């Protein structure tokens, strides 16, 4: 690769995605369907001072392919990005998003707005999902510094971008996680409430969906829990997460495996 200089009318501007396409850095998309591990349930809950995200850790092919996948990553200091669908594509997608936001910042000496980041991902999803069976479905959440609120953006398979003002879920465990969130969500939910509800939603998904991993008390692997606030992206430490899942599990054990109508 030589020095990438462009004539003014062919210049791809500050978009890394468009540059990468022009320069042939992207993997060509083919319609070939390969068996590849899938990554599974992630939820985002908006609360009064930001967004909470919880994601399971399991990648599933015909068997469990991996037990400790990280499906939520910081795309930059104030933005988190989560993936479901084909693991290989999802990881490339996260890399592309992280690099693109940083690239834009370096090229223009200013950061993209949160809405700008959300819209930027649409054509990337579209390019992948409409030309390949290796679907990837992301979820974007972040702290919007210009409006001082946490915001969540979800996508449809064709790349359509929609803002959610309460919560969003992606992945095969969606029906179960979403049900828990619908019953437990309140408009004035606080951080602790959002963390507890988010953990419960993933617990339910892990309990019912074979492709979603619940808390693994044997190997000490727990779902990822993160918060995005005015202070930026923060991952809860493993002990804190373990305690939360242990509490849910203990209650469920005591009630003989049923939620008992209390959302607990």
């Amino acid at each position: 690769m030589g020095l990438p200089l462009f004539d003014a009318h062919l210049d791809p501007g500050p978009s890394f995605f468009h540059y990468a396409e022009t320069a042939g850095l992207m993997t060509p998309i083919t319609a070939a369907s390969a068996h590849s591990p899938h990554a599974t349930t992630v939820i985002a809950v908006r609360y009064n001072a930001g967004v909470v995200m919880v994601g399971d850790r399991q990648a599933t092919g015909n068997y469990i392919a991996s037990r400790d996948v990280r499906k939520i990553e910081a795309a930059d200091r104030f933005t988190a990005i989560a993936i479901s669908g084909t693991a290989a594509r999802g990881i490339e997608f996260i890399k592309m998003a992280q690099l693109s936001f940083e690239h834009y910042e370096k090229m223009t000496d200013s950061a993209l707005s949160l809405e700008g980041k959300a819209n930027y991902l649409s054509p990337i999803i579209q390019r992948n999902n409409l030309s390949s069976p290796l679907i990837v479905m992301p979820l974007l959440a972040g702290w919007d510094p210009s409006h001082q609120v946490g915001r969540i953006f979800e996508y449809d398979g064709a790349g359509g971008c929609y803002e959610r003002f309460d919560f969003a879920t992606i992945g095969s465990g969606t029906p179960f996680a979403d049900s828990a969130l619908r019953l437990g969500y309140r408009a004035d939910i606080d951080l602790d409430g959002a963390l507890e509800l988010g953990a419960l939603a993933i617990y339910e998904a892990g309990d019912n969906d074979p492709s979603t991993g619940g808390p693994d008390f044997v190997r000490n692997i727990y779902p990822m829990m993160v918060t995005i606030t005015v202070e930026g992206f923060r991952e809860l430490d493993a002990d804190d997460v373990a305690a939360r899942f242990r509490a849910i599990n203990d209650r469920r054990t005591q009630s003989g495996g049923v939620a008992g109508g209390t959302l607990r």
Partner: protein
Amino acid sequence: MSNYFYVSPEQLIKDRAEFAQKGIARGRSMVGAIYDVGVLLIAENPSASLNKISEIYDRIAFAGAGRYNEFDRLREADIRWADGTGFTYSREDVDARALANYYAQHLGDMFTEGQKPLEVEILVAQLGSKIRPTKLYRVAYEGTISDEPFYSVLGGDAETIRARFAAHEERIHPLKQTLKNAVDALAGPDRTIPTADLEVGILEDRGTRRTFMRLSDDEVSELLS
């Protein structure tokens, strides 16, 4: 049939060099210097938005002197090259030396074959790590590349400023002293540069992956006081 006048290669090179030097001399100068825990880039720049100094990659920064549109295009190419290489291979494979070589080739080509030589000088700075050294690579308008041990001066007044800078001991100082020396060298004995007219960027480890940081006017004033 038209007549071509013979111009000797020596004359051609001389003319082109003179042209480029004149262009560069119209812009203000800048200094890059290594300090005890980082690299300082400082430019005299009255504009707060048309930058001469820029982040390129995790441990690499860029500075340009001369014509803005020409070095800014090279800066963009630099960021694209670095991000593209990191994307294709790995972040640790992005090396300032490779970048400096590409600049040298491009500037060299433009000098001999272009419509006109580029009226720019470029500095590529790299903050050292376990696998790479701290470096200042200066690339001149005709493609000459030099690896400068302590500091590097770009732009019109380079020789005078270099002499002033050399008056201080040639060794590594902390940031405060280095910044002071650089500002003194840029200003000269008869002039003081207002802080608002200084553009300052540093590469320094702060526990994060990206090491480039711009210093605000307040931070610069405090360091200079």
